[in-house]
């Protein structure tokens, strides 16, 4: 046997601090979400509520890992993990601060100027400043390296032209982190950079792209001769590809990758009552078993982040398996209880199913499609 196969998910040490924090977060959410409807909870990390973001910012639950001098709280990746999984499981509306907390803030902390960090990070941590992720374009989705938006040097900075697409919540965001071409040449992955873009800059037009449900999350962000200052360049010029890839590791491994359908599961159990039939009991146990194992894996990735290891491969595995589970939950639920999916229903399961069934196809698309993730895993196995 010559091939070796070792993709380990190291165990995470027990943390009493995290356990205490969990109960604190749980108690806070129980109060805050007391009257939140199941269909709103089902929105998972697409629920947008600035008041909620400010409230948890005040409690120190945004920017938890960042240094205190930038408004952060100097806590561990494992403590952050506890907070976000509690919020997702409870169906809290985290969307406003979500991208800034998860990836844009960490990117600023790593690549931003001292002035940018001092000005922006504390506002993110207070739950007041929101970010959009400017990666996809009309002709660049999975093949992100093919972006055509381009920043060209000027005497005092850059001028940008191009279009970003599927930009979630850009219409509410203050900033966007833009991924675009800066150099010409043959190198497919080279020649790109990241920029911090104030969305109030002249020349930026944000147009809604309504989803199949009629909701407005997505946008088309058109940039026409947008002038950016020199210090808008984030990180190293030409190194955008590597920066984006490391950002995606954060994006791929979290509990949002297996909890998107959790409200359906809760409402299913409510419908089934304390003594379901054999088929339903088995289904609940089977879903919980898979969730428990995925939680352990996702938690392990948080532990690897804390230990400054690169979990890109493990993150891809968690997201791939998580999306399968998230997509199966509504399919299993609908066959166990005789309810019609109906967004206007007063029945929690019916309404949650209506939301989740319509969004479930996105679970294996957003943040890296199933096919791309499996390609990453194959590369990790040395096959490509």
């Amino acid at each position, binding site marked *: 046997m010559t*091939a070796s196969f070792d993709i380990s998910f190291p165990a995470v040490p027990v943390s009493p601090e995290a356990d205490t924090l969990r109960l604190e977060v749980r108690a806070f959410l129980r109060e805050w979400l007391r009257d939140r409807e199941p269909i709103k909870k089902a929105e998972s990390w697409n629920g947008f509520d600035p008041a909620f973001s400010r409230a948890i910012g005040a409690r120190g639950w945004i920017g938890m890992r960042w240094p205190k001098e930038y408004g952060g709280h100097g806590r561990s990746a494992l403590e952050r993990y506890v907070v976000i999984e509690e919020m997702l*499981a409870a169906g809290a509306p985290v969307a406003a601060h979500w991208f800034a907390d998860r990836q844009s803030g960490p990117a600023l902390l790593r690549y931003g100027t001292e002035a940018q960090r001092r000005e922006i990070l504390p506002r993110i941590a207070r739950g007041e400043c929101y970010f959009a992720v400017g990666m996809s374009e009309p002709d660049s989705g999975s093949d992100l390296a093919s972006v055509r938006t381009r920043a060209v040097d000027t005497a005092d900075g850059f001028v940008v032209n191009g279009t970003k697409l599927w930009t979630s919540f850009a219409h509410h965001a203050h900033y966007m982190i833009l991924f675009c071409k800066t150099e010409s040449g043959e190198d497919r992955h080279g020649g790109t950079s990241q920029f911090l873009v104030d969305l109030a800059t002249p020349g930026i037009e944000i147009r809604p792209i309504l989803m199949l449900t009629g909701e407005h999350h997505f946008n088309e962000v058109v940039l026409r001769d947008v002038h950016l200052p020199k210090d808008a360049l984030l990180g190293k010029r030409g190194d955008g590809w590597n920066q984006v890839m490391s950002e995606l590791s954060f994006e791929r491994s979290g509990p949002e990758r297996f909890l998107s359908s959790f409200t359906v599961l*809760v409402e299913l159990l409510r419908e089934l009552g304390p003594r379901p039939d054999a088929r339903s*009991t088995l*289904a609940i*146990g089977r879903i*919980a078993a898979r969730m*428990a194992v995925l939680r352990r894996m996702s938690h392990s990735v948080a532990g690897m982040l804390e230990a400054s290891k690169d979990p890109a491969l493990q993150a891809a595995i968690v997201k791939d398996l998580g999306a399968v589970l998230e997509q199966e939950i509504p399919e299993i639920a609908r066959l166990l209880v005789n309810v019609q999916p109906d967004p206007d229903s007063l029945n929690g399961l019916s309404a949650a199913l209506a939301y989740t069934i319509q969004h479930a196809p996105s679970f294996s698309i957003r943040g890296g499609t199933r096919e791309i*993730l*499996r390609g990453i895993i194959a590369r990790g196995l040395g096959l490509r």
Partner: protein
Amino acid sequence: MSEILSSMVTRVFADHCSDAVALRAEEGEWPEALWRTSEEAGLPLALIETGEHSLGVPVEDAFQIVRLAGKFAVPVPLPETMLANWLLTRSGLEPQSGPLVAVANPALRTDESGTRLTGEIPSVPWGRRAGVVACFERSGMLHVAYLGRDGFSVREGTNIAREPRDRLVFDVDLNRTAVAPLPAGVDGIRLRAAGAALRCSQIAGALESITAMTIDYTGQRVQFGRPISKFQAVQQNLAVLAGQAAAASSAADMAAEAFAEGIRLCAIAAAKTFAGEAAGVAAGIAHQMHGAMGFSREYALHFRTKRLWSWREEYGNETEWSTWLGEGLASRGADQLWAEITAI
């Protein structure tokens, strides 16, 4: 697991568990050299945590030995013997040499005097060769006794990997053997869960092995002018296989921890459910990727896949454990669901 222990155990299995040994074991030959070397290395005592018979190996490492046993598909009851010796010493009895198996089944009953033990137990691993450690209820309390090879008759059977799974018919005079109460915190379902935890580790080891074999094979097999592992369709399948193997490995870790924490049932129930399901998915992909070669008796894949198809059933399959888990979750209700899942 310590590097020294891992390489020592790997060497024992690699040296004494060739494909030829595995084939002869399928035909009923006992691999004496493999067993003797394992015993000389102390492996059957690895789960004993403290006391004079302990190897001084942490529980997690003992489960890594079990995982290696799964990886090499060793055709001896090493995990069963480890568990039986653990049970004997936890009950204040002496560990025993030779292969052992613990039998905990409510079908084993004592008569009114409490001295005669009878019952018929199916599918006992290596029942034809292992010394039996029996658990049974007497005067309302669970007890354990080392029966050795006395007091039962054997009807031979096997699982599909041709590992002995024999029907034992007991008629034992308990006056002739030492009987001790089961230690606190151990009961019938926990012994079944302990067995399930061992199977999780064996499954994880076998999945690690078939994943490596499949990556190897698809890298060597050339069709349409290139190794088939260069085709995207094949790569996507291998990625799923690796994901299932990695996840089953996490499930096995979870089960091993749960054993160390006093046999926590919910974690083992979840782990065995997950590992059982992964075993089926992964065995299917491994065979698909091997084509006809995987069906050849001479090629070693089937030693693992046949065990996977057997082990996922033994000590409770996905239906048994997910039903157990689901009943508990449903009884505590929708609003407790998340708290219960985080407590698994």
